[in-house]
């Protein structure tokens, strides 16, 4: 989908209005473009059977990963989910080894062992994706506790969806983090559907953020399609965590353009609902903001998009021409020696 073509649909401006350096806004926009292009082109490649497994698309949720990770340092930790590519890229993972992993190739970031739901980079504090809904949240507490034991001001972020907020792991982790005052952000991207079941069918409470009250920590609902709003909320929560004031639960209201996975017919939701959310597209809104503030020109923004498109295409070309793993490699790394 082209952000430019849909500019007219940008009914809701970005906000709140606060001073963010144009250079920082541009970085966020370019990162969102990278994720958008990555997801678009991977969907296309998957539909042509160019790689095996599944695709859990991040399309539509780009502002969540980018807004939060823009408030983090390289040495902060993130733990993510089966829908983690946005987080990997936003935290700085290199595009080509990540895409090669999606294709299960030998030069993938996990040597083809992980596939679409798993990637990590210790140097960037990326502590992995997960095939288990809610499986990552508990160990985010351990990363945060390492920071406490080291006396550092690092923070950890657990990304998850509203579906995972019904797992016991979420509640156990939030309670521990609150009781121990851990430097941990719980970031719930509420895209309204837990796999194929609407959140309204599995929770009487419509706002996940309100669950924070039960644990005595701040919880905040944020427009997850407004990258500057996400960034502002994350920055404040990160500052609280770094200062020793403990965890925060952020609920980012957003929408998953694709289904649970690529190929899901989405018969459980309406085309009207999809159109409403596409009118609030995070890229279109930031694009409109940049132009309305005269921060950049349409032609420059176009050139960035073309640039990201070309980089993703080149990475996919690399993946297509890369070797599969040597099956004998399956026997290595079972144990650390």
């Amino acid at each position, binding site marked *: 989908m082209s952000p430019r073509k849909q500019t007219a649909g940008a009914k809701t401006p970005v906000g709140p209005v606060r001073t963010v350096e144009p250079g920082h806004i541009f970085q966020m926009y370019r990162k969102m473009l990278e994720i958008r292009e990555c997801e678009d082109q991977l969907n296309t490649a998957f539909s042509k059977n160019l790689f095996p497994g599944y695709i859990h698309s991040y399309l539509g949720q780009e502002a969540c990963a980018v807004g939060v990770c823009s408030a983090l340092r390289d040495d902060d*930790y993130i733990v993510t989910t089966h829908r983690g590519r946005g987080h990997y890229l936003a935290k700085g993972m290199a595009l080509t080894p990540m895409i090669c992993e999606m294709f299960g190739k030998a030069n993938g970031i996990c040597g083809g062992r992980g596939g679409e739901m798993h990637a990590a980079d210790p140097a960037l504090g990326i502590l992995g994706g997960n095939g288990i809904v809610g499986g990552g949240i508990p160990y985010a507490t*351990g990363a945060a506790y390492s920071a406490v034991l080291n006396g550092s001001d690092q923070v950890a972020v657990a990304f998850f969806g509203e579906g995972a907020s019904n797992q016991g792991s979420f509640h156990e982790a939030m309670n521990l983090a609150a009781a121990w005052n851990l430097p941990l952000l719980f970031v719930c991207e509420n895209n309204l559907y837990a796999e194929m079941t609407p959140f309204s069918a599995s929770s009487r409470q419509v706002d996940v953020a309100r669950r924070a009250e039960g644990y005595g920590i701040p919880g905040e609902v944020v427009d997850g399609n407004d990258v500057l709003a996400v960034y502002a909320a994350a920055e404040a929560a990160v500052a609280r965590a770094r200062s020793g004031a403990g965890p925060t639960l952020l609920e980012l209201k957003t929408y998953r353009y694709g289904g649970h996975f690529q190929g899901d017919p989405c018969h459980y939701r309406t085309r009207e609902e999809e159109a409403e959310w596409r009118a609030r597209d995070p890229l279109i809104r930031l694009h409109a903001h940049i132009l309305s503030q005269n921060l950049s020109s349409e032609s420059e923004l176009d050139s960035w998009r073309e640039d990201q498109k070309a980089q993703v295409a080149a990475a996919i070309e690399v993946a297509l021409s890369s070797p599969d793993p040597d099956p004998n490699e399956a026997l290595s790394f079972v144990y650390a020696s």
Partner: protein
Amino acid sequence: MTMKNYCWALIDAINEEMARDPDVFLAGEDVAAAGGAFGGSRGLLAAHGPLRVRDTPISEEVIVGLGVGAAMTGKRPIVEIMFMDFFGLCMDQIVNQAAKMHYLYQGAFKMPMVIRTMTAVEMGIGPHHSQSLEAWVGHVPGLKVVMPSTPRDAKGLMKSAIRDDNPVVFIENLALHKIKEDIEDEEFLIPLGKADIKRAGRDVTVVATGLMVHKALAAAEILSQEGIEIEVIDPRTISPLDVDTIVASVRKTNRALVVTSAHKPFGLASEVAAQIMDHAFYDLDVPVARLTPPFTPQPFGKGFEAFLHPDKASIVAAVRELMA
């Protein structure tokens, strides 16, 4: 040498390793202020402070998760799950997270964590505190599983487990907590994956774990008076299993009995029998025998445990049958 019981030998091991390496910490239910629900961490809070010896909520999944994340980021956590029966609450973190991180990310993360837990088999505490579930974790690649039967083994194996870069499930036996043994005062380690011959013998190899080691040794005394000398082998580590020591013994004795507190189906007794078949089939004079409790949950009332579990007499009988 100092006389130590099994429980204090474990406390000594953890205390020494915490003093040696500031990255080691202990977290679990009642481990700090209470000194352990069964006294297994007495004195550690005072010695190492509240950040490194920490009480957790009763939240098994996040207790293990705490260890996983801390291990991935450079710490050497010991996380305690009070009874192994509670593993049902935290198996995702053990099986899907801890066990696979090193493999999945090709060694980018090490997972130096100990999951300290306990079986209270034959302690009369009923169906949710008495199970011997080592097969659950022995089946999972990436995990190591330790199950010591003596104070000295407990200490040396715990120190090795803490220094190991893999997730180690360390199963204590509550029924053995008060047994005593002279332990050297100098530092020592016992390597993971190495069985110990608790009693040498020529006639029958008896592989036993945990509480059953002591029952097998008692049976050996009776059998010896009949002229039957059994060789009692304690694997000490369930995974990796020291197959070489077991097979070497069977090649000598040509007969084997495996005795465990765990059930037969898919369990350690069956695995040891299969390993002997794989490596020493033609050395066997008779089929490998397995002596275990029947395939039932553990009921509470007096008399049930004695009825269900192998004892000295049933081990003697099983050995006599192999010799017949």
